[in-house]
């Protein structure tokens, strides 16, 4: 019998009631009496000298309260970067100033130049048309290699070049890696591009600033995945407001996918302007603005090489990557192509020697930062495409080449040559599961059936590993993080036994209100309906780091378990007192405290009431009340892994690729709510297939954004996708967190692009066209057709 509550039950998402009935409370639903509206005037040039801005005519327009330019932001700091990368030569990365409004220069299409604040949004937009902005256009740098060429225009005049850093990892291994290549029996290499993406969450960004004159308190309502991080970065570095005077609220948030992690200029502006104007100030992004102001994702250009011995064992791996930073460093941008990418280059394999080189480059484009998977999809794509190419080049089965080089179950914990230690896993098990579920055995017949219709059918696999549960603070501190990456929780048990959890994690679609309550229900033995999950408000939750990197349950859930254990320990003491027994003899089960081996018991609510009405209570040794806070700092990352399979059909006449089937066999460790996990995988797969087949953020040579709306930026739609087969029955529980969970939020987007591209190459090779060894994503009909013709 499936359980209907607790850990392992597919409990329906309680938050969906409000989302599906239009009762969600998103940032744009927040309207404060007397609020004014901000309209950002953005650069339509990629690069230029900002000579002057004449605001007089705009300021004279009806309803205008004030027009702000950089000159009005004296005392406001630049937007900070949260990670410092040290390069191959021990030098810190180049870190340019990122002003809230452009100072002296514009550096990408969408760079904010001025803000009109008016009584209504239409008035602000009308007035914006009256601004007289004088810009001398400069040549733009868009292509990363061109940006590094001698004499290229510089995005930041005060830097030595457009190179942010030249990172080598593991630098000490470089010579050994080169030597392994020199003596390899086989070398396989591949040049590829990981296409730039726009996250496009359904809800665009919104920020509302409020200021209370009598107390001097500021409040920012914002579409954020991590309100405490925004409070810290904006308060300490940009506006100089102490935490005690600054509240950041991230209410219901309609998707983030990484793009709502970062601290953005608009947030700082509305908070600043509210204080200046003594009025609430609201900004709501249009979709067009989102395309040119939300941080973009991916955008790597890579050469990757694999060395193999005569028996096809991988002996060394070498990569050379250019990573686009865009015009400024977004909050976590520097760490994505380095520590979240280089450390994953071992994949599921025993490759003993690895060297990763990454050059991060400034260009006149929107800043690039983490997007679902963040560095790990880039690593997985390179590796899994390369392994597939190796199998084809050597004439062996892609599945068997993978298996031969997999880390085997008895080799865990496994120290990779790229710093991380995998705690546990079973890669053959997920591969077996995948082949079974995708009916690999029946593929040949299906291929023949397609061929009879003039279509080419292909099957591709990819293995993946990712590092989630981000992250041990002392480790990331050594690697350059300017923040800790623990998580926090407060468990407030109320007098009648109901429980309110305050978590530092933030739910923007993940379903924490349901899953976290399931964990509490399981541990205490009370109905999940008695448990309320509160998140997203710095005024009532403990300092937390928020949600990204599939960390909520693994880190935030662990903090909650830790706090719950403190609560349970104290409750047992109270129960011991009430039952006149030693607290060591007290057992908590199904919401009841029993003296072991007796029938003496007291209900959970009897104990909680005693805690708050302490008439019969050990006041000499125990404080009244039942509320505990815990911070959990993980001792390692978690390592979800799996095997993905994709079956496609290629129309050779048009180049159109149809995804016929997609199967995912994941090892997420223990699963709290299978339905939610499936939903997370579905969403990830949709985004990964979107990247592989449809999505492409493109600039022209002048730095104009070509894919600036949904007319040209192709999002995946339901009819682009097959029914997914998703399995998570292969379980190797995480060995170092209390729930044994690993995280499932990004896997789908990590494993699917290489599986899909491998399937298309398989289809093309199956039709005899073995000359086509790679096609860059997205595999649009035109690109596939061009590769064939």
């Amino acid at each position, binding site marked *: 019998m499936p359980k209907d509550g607790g850990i392992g039950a597919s409990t329906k998402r309680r938050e969906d009631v409000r989302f599906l009935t239009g009762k969600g409370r998103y940032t744009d639903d927040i309207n404060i009496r007397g609020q004014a509206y901000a309209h950002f005037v953005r650069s339509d040039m990629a690069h230029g000298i900002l000579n002057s801005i004449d605001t007089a005519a705009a300021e004279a327009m009806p309803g205008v309260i004030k027009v702000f330019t950089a000159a009005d932001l004296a005392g406001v700091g630049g937007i900070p970067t949260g990670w410092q990368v040290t390069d191959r030569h021990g030098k810190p990365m180049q870190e340019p100033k990122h002003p809230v409004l452009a100072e002296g220069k514009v550096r990408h299409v969408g760079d904010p130049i001025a803000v009109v604040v008016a009584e209504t949004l*239409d008035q602000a*937009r*009308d007035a914006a*048309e009256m601004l007289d902005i004088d810009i001398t256009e400069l040549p733009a740098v868009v292509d990363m290699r061109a940006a590094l060429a001698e004499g290229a225009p510089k995005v930041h005049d005060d830097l030595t070049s457009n190179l942010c850093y030249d990172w080598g990892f593991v630098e000490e291994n470089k010579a050994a890696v080169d030597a392994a290549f020199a003596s390899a029996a086989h070398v396989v290499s591949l040049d590829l591009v990981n296409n730039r993406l726009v996250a496009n969450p359904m809800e665009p960004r919104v920020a509302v600033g409020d200021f209370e004159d009598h107390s001097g308190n500021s409040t920012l309502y914002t579409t954020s995945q991590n309100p405490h991080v925004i409070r810290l970065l904006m308060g300490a570095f940009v506006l100089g407001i102490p935490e005690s005077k600054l509240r950041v609220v991230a209410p219901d948030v309609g998707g983030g996918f990484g793009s709502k992690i970062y601290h953005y200029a608009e947030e700082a502006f509305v908070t600043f302007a509210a204080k200046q104007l003594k009025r609430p100030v609201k900004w709501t992004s249009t979709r*067009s603005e989102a395309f040119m102001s939300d941080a973009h994702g991916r955008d790597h250009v890579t050469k990757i090489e694999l060395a193999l011995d005569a028996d096809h064992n991988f002996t060394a791996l070498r990569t050379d990557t250019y990573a686009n930073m865009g015009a400024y460093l977004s909050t976590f941008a520097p760490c994505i192509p380095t520590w979240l990418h280089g450390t994953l280059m071992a994949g599921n394999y025993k490759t003993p020697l690895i060297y990763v080189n990454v050059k991060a480059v400034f260009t006149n484009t929107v800043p690039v930062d983490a997007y679902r998977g963040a560095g790990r999809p880039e690593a997985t794509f390179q590796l899994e495409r390369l392994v597939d190419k190796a199998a084809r080049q050597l004439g062996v089965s892609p599945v068997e080449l993978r298996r031969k080089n997999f880390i085997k179950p008895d080799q865990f914990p496994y120290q990779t040559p790229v710093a991380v230690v995998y705690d546990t896993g079973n890669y053959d098990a997920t591969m077996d599961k995948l082949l079974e579920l995708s009916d690999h055995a029946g593929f040949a017949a299906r291929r023949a059936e397609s061929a009879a219709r003039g279509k080419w059918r292909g099957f591709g696999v990819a293995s993946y590993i990712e590092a989630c549960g981000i992250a041990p603070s002392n480790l990331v501190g050594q690697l350059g993080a300017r923040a800790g990456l623990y998580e926090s929780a407060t468990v407030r048990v109320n007098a009648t036994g109901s429980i309110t959890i305050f978590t530092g994690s933030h739910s923007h679609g993940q379903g924490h209100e349901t899953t976290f309550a399931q964990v509490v229900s399981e541990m205490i033995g009370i109905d999940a309906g008695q448990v309320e999950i509160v998140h997203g408000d710095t005024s009532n939750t403990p300092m937390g780091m928020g949600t990204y990197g599939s960390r909520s349950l693994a880190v935030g859930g662990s903090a909650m378990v830790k706090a719950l254990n403190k609560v349970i320990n104290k409750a047992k003491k109270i129960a011991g007192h009430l039952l006149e027994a030693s607290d060591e003899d007290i057992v908590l089960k199904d919401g009841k405290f029993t003296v072991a081996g007796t029938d003496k018991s007291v209900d959970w609510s009897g104990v909680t009431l005693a805690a708050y009405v302490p008439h019969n209570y050990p006041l000499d040794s125990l404080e009244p009340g039942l509320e505990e806070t815990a911070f959990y700092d993980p001792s390692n990352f978690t390592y979800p892994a799996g095997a993905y399979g994709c079956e496609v059909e290629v129309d050779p*006449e*048009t180049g*159109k690729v149809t995804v016929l089937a997609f199967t995912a066999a994941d090892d997420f460790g223990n699963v709290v709510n299978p339905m939610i996990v499936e939903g997370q995988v579905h969403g990830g797969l949709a985004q990964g297939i979107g990247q592989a087949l*449809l999505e*492409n953020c*493109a600039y022209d040579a002048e730095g104009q954004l*070509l*894919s600036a709306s*949904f*007319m*040209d*930026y*192709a*999002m995946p739609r339901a009819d682009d996708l097959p029914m997914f087969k998703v399995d998570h029955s292969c379980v190797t529980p995480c060995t170092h967190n209390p729930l044994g969970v690993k995280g499932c939020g990004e896997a789908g987007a990590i494993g699917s692009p290489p599986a899909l591209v491998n399937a298309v190459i398989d289809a093309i090779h199956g039709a005899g066209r073995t000359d086509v060894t790679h096609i860059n994503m997205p595999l*649009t*009909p*035109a690109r596939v*057709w*061009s590769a064939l*013709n």
Partner: protein
Amino acid sequence: MHNFQFVKPTTVADAVAALEHDGAQALSGGQTLIPTMKQRLAAPEVLVSLTGIDAMKGVCKGDGGLHIGAATPHAVVAREAAAYYPALAHLAGHIGDPAVRSRGTIGGSLANNDPSACYPSAVLASDAVVVTNKRQIAADDYFQGLFSTALQLGEIITEIRFPIPERAAYVKFDQPASRFALVGVFVAKFAGGVRVAVTGAGEEGVFRWKEAEAALSAGFHMAAIEDLAPPKQRMIGDLHGTPEYRAQMVKVMTKRAVGAA
């Protein structure tokens, strides 16, 4: 969006009169015009809605063909033309999404003449007549390049008259993002010959592929296309396809349209 006045006349004459105001513009389904206004790329002072004019709505079988009121939404054409002109109904039923189809109209689409729109190919391939408040315009004279038509300032389309071919089909190859036609080909076989109209591909908008028409008039089968060189019109090159790709797709889609007709 800038402020504007809104009028909703019930006769063509009143609409024409209202359009004489400076800065007045016709509004039909609003699926093109409203987004343009929201982006502040258009700022008409007066919007003259055409959807209250009964004489401009509906699908009916008339002398020698199918008459469709210019303010008839795509969804209505999809439903009501099906019995008379299935290829045209199929085209209408695959424009945009349900919301676009229930508001967007045939007249708005033809007045706009987007190079990737579907209807222009049907009108041109069917040798239809565009009827306005002033005159009747033959399809061959109506389309004059990208977003440009024979319509004069203040002239409104009231009706489109489609001769009904013996066999016809429209095959649309979607642009992956917008799902407008990356290449769309409408093939119509009449007793007097075959007409082939191509949308989505040409730099000058919808065009007739005369070589294919000749070949298909000689023999209406897919093989007739096989040996033709792609059309010599200049093709659009953009993010979604090179000119060379589009030229090839015109051939492929023409062949498929013949197969489907």
